[in-house]
């Protein structure tokens, strides 16, 4: 469908889940409104649009909401399927692998981002070691199952796809966590492919534009 749609994203500036949605919309050139939510004081609108989880991001297209970041990314890819880049590959087996590794991040990597800031001493070291080990597993898996030498700089090819956007959000979250917890989580020697994908994403105009755009909305309170 080529008709202009009313698109609104409800999000929070520091959320990596929301960041991926900004990137996906901007990559496809889809104009949208943005509503910054104060997660300590959620709007009635947000609670009405996502009553089940009461979380951001929520993408509303012509009044119809969709929640959950990975669901939203696939929705964007299908609704604006005629707009490049395609965020998921054509081939069903490759699609399954993309979904698998995205799911891996949420299952194995994300939970540790809640553990690390609260942990101390040995348990902190163990959590950091496990985090880095899981990234190494992902590096190996993506390299073996999805990466095509010479077809980069992204896992998806010459334009970023779902996994690349996820990696980009991970990068932002990881850098924040490294600062807060005083640890090193990313290592170019351990995960060169993932790091190069993240670097390539950071160079994109749409990513820089999003960063500038979100600066306007950053709250003063922490």
């Amino acid at each position, binding site marked *: 469908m080529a008709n202009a749609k009313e698109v609104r994203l409800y999000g929070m500036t520091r959320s990596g889940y929301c960041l991926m949605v900004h990137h996906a919309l901007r990559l496809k050139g889809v104009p949208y409104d943005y509503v910054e939510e104060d997660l300590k004081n959620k709007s009635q609108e947000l609670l009405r649009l996502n009553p*089940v989880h009461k979380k951001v991001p929520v993408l509303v*297209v012509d009044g*119809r909401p*969709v*929640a*959950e970041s*990975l*669901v*939203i990314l*696939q*929705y964007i890819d*299908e*609704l604006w399927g005629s707009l490049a880049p395609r965020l998921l590959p054509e081939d*069903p*087996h490759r*699609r*399954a692998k993309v*979904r*698998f590794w995205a*799911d*891996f991040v949420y299952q194995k990597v994300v939970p540790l981002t809640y553990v690390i800031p609260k942990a101390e001493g040995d348990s902190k070291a163990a959590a950091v070691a496990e985090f880095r080990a899981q990234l190494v*597993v992902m590096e190996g*898996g993506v390299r073996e199952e999805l990466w095509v030498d010479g077809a980069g700089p992204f896992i998806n090819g010459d334009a970023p796809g779902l996994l690349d956007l996820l990696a980009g959000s991970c990068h932002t979250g990881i850098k924040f966590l490294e600062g807060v917890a005083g640890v090193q989580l990313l290592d170019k020697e351990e995960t060169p492919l993932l790091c190069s994908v993240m670097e390539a994403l950071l160079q994109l105009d749409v990513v820089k534009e999003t960063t500038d755009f979100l600066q306007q909305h950053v709250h003063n309170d922490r």
Partner: protein
Amino acid sequence: MAEAEQVKVLRFWASPWSFRVELALKLKGVPHEKVEEDLANKSPLLLASNPIHKKIPVLLHNGKAIPESLIILEYIDETWTDNPILPKAPHERGMARFWSRFIDDKCVGACWMSCWTEGETQQMFMEQARACLRILDDELGGRRFFGGESIGLVDISASFFALWLGVLQEVAGISLINGDEFPNLCRWIEGFVASDVVTECLPPRDKLLAVFQSKKQAILATKSMVY
């Protein structure tokens, strides 16, 4: 589609997750071989096909391995396009994925933990489980299936509630799913288990009850869903 297609499901007869995959293949009329796994002694094929999680189900299609039940369901729908299990329109597809994830991320865990904890912890999980079931009951409303007139992705994802939850609550001696609080869900369960395709695939209730009874102590100790 290839001439002589090889479709195998690495499965465990009592697992609601491998049931999902078999039901989807059956709904689409895809001939397949069921390879029973001994979860205490996993086969080299399983370990090679799913090295990361080492779990069933795994779909093997002409040698390609696809693990994780929800991911397998999408692969099945994209590969065998008769009798679609996902809707066509993007928003409806998004909602189907949303509800399947809700079932896996929130509902099943709360129901499971309700069975194997006690005291205040159990009360907390039971409240969570009821809240989830209420949300699903409201979402279903008066519809025959979550997929509308026919079984779809969300119905397949919700099959845990159609048989396994009833068995588990009996073993655990609790009551979660009941017709007074969740009339729509209970009506859905009746319709779902009565449908021909589902009846052909479901494991026998008495066998399921027996296996959970026998594993009760082990599950109480670990709370693990890998039984």
